[in-house]
């Protein structure tokens, strides 16, 4: 495979990413699955890079989950999105940074709709004014939080204490990068690197010392996407999607998976446990599974944040083997002690997945 061939394509898909003064909107569900990620993003932006990131506690869900599950009609979604824009305008910001990839896709979709159908924008302005009395301006720049970390990846690497290198062999770690579907598949020009060979996570991995694996099912959806798995009977469909990806990446023996969506790491992490319990199959070395990370967690690890502060104890597939590979120190006794040193309880050991 010639990476130069991909670089030519990456050149075609570059996008404007704002430099500073960000209005941050959070994900509905991310903090439940990966509690340390949004905290890590804000800490990196404010303390490490010295940027201005503002969030308004009055901001809400973008209704992406509801919209994609056919529960929330598009008009309502557009109006809620408009309210988010209004909060941003009122605070004096013009650069919107969503934490969730579905939010990013939704905001892009709404802004594109308004571009092609200005009467929709006019309608929504009326709705919002009537409902809340607020007025808004469309953000000048919309970039996903992973785009921001991508933009500042070299600064993070420069300030970093660790690299994505196996300290025993000196070889770069083999990293599978997985992009959320809503990042680039709908609007390829709005994703760094486009949809076929996305670059946003690849760029991070390359600059942080790792090696990205290109495997055949790289583009396949992980199976999240709300509609199908909300009903338990359909969940097998979602699991089958993740399983297809695992089967395809396994021959390359990856050390880790990095993702930029709230749902994808949740599925890729948890489904490894489900597949092990349902079919007895595990991926990764010695049945340990392949550890899955969000890009904020990886950035945090590079910068030397404490793994338990990043929330890695809540990962179903244990991350310790990877921490050992990189040489990141951690205190195994503090793993299940909470913020104030209280015992948060130890999970039951799975029957198949090796969590030693």
């Amino acid at each position, binding site marked *: 495979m010639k990476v130069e*061939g991909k670089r030519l394509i990456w050149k075609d898909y570059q996008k404007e990413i704002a430099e500073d003064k960000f209005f941050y909107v959070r994900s509905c569900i991310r903090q439940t699955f990966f509690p340390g990620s949004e905290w890590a993003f804000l800490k990196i932006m404010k303390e490490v890079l010295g940027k201005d990131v503002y969030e308004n506690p009055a901001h809400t869900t973008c209704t992406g989950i509801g919209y994609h599950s056919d529960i929330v009609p598009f008009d309502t979604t557009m109006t809620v999105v408009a309210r988010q824009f209004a909060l941003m305008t009122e605070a004096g910001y013009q650069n919107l940074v969503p934490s969730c990839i579905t939010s990013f896709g939704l905001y892009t979709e709404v802004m594109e709709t308004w571009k092609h159908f200005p009467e929709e924008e006019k309608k929504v302005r009326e709705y919002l004014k009537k409902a809340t009395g607020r007025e808004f301006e469309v953000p000048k720049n919309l970039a996903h939080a992973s785009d921001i970390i991508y933009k500042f990846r070299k600064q993070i690497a420069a300030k970093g204490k660790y690299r994505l290198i196996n300290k025993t062999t000196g070889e770069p770690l083999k990293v599978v990068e997985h992009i959320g579907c809503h990042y680039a598949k709908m609007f390829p020009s709005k994703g760094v690197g486009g949809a076929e*060979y996305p670059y946003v996570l690849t760029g991070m991995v390359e600059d942080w010392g790792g090696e990205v694996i290109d495997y*055949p099912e790289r583009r396949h959806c992980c199976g999240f996407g709300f509609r199908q798995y909300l009903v338990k009977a359909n969940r097998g469909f979602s699991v089958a999607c993740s399983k297809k990806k695992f089967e395809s990446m396994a021959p390359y023996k990856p050390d880790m998976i990095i993702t930029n969506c709230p749902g994808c790491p949740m599925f890729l992490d948890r489904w490894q446990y489900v597949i092990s319990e349902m079919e007895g199959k595990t991926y990764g070395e010695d049945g340990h599974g392949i550890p899955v990370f969000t890009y904020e967690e990886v950035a945090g690890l590079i910068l030397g944040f404490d793994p338990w502060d990043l929330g890695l104890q809540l990962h179903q597939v244990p991350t310790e083997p990877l921490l050992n590979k990189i040489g990141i120190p951690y205190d195994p006794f503090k793993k299940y002690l909470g913020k104030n040193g209280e015992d948060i309880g130890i999970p039951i050991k799975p029957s198949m997945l090796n969590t030693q």
Partner: protein
Amino acid sequence: MNKKVVIIGGGIAGMEASITLAELGYHATLLEKSHSTGGHVQDWYQLFPNRRPAKEVLTFSELRMEGKVKTINDADIIEIEKNINDFRILLRNGKLVVADAIVVATGFDLFDAHRKEEYGYGIYENVITSADLEKRFSEGKKILTHGGAVPKRIGIIHCVGSRDEKSGNNYCSKVCCVTGVKQAIEIREMLPETEVFCFYMDLRMFGRHFEELYKESQEKWGVNFIRGRLSEANENADGSILLKVEDTLAGKPLKMKVDLLILLAGFVPSGGTKAIGKMLGLPFGDDGFITPKDEHTSTNLTDIQGVFVTGSCTGPKSIQDSIADARAAATQVANYLK
């Protein structure tokens, strides 16, 4: 007669037009942008449908040109001035060529397969185009994978860059289907142990003997055909290519590994067609090719007095089409100049 005709473009159509005009008694000057005449036919190995050597067709034309047609190679045209009675063509090297009539025969380029990102051309070494394959045939090279092994299975993909809104080309490039079938046979003859699969949407066997060639490919050579357009090509860990198509006749998605993938790249109007057409103020169709005066009755005329068109600059053509069209254009020029 001392009327001068300038033929712009030294491919097969330009060559044939120049010879016919010379034989009719005109001063024919052939301007060719590159170092040599012959155009794309120089790059082909054997021609469909009967697999005769491409060189024979070139030689047929070259021999008749000798001493009769003035050829200027490396001719980079920067300006064409239309006067009441003639045309003045200025070349980059300062040379001025005067003409009483111009025949535009600037032809086509092949679609740049890099643009089909999902097929991995330029990224995965075992993905090549039909033109790359012809070159290997012409140079007598063995058909091997990038790793130097004999491929156990080769895939051929039809409609690359043609009939494809995403590539910006909605038209059919006409000759790629029969080229794919021809190359499939050539591969099977060279590598009897190698399986060949052609992935197509439709098989356009429009010419004489083409359908019989298709039948022969199946009956005599065991070429396999799967109706389904390639959605994506990915690389396996061993460098082989994993294909995802729908087997539309089975109604199910299908995945298959091939050791070498060949993309049948279609036609696009050449850079020369675009440039010369613009210089002369000729109309282009939605497909980017030059539109002649009337698409049934006057396919070699344009709305500009003294300017004629022939060959693939007005749309994809086979070699047989181009030669016939070039001779037709010559008769139109003669009619104009008498």
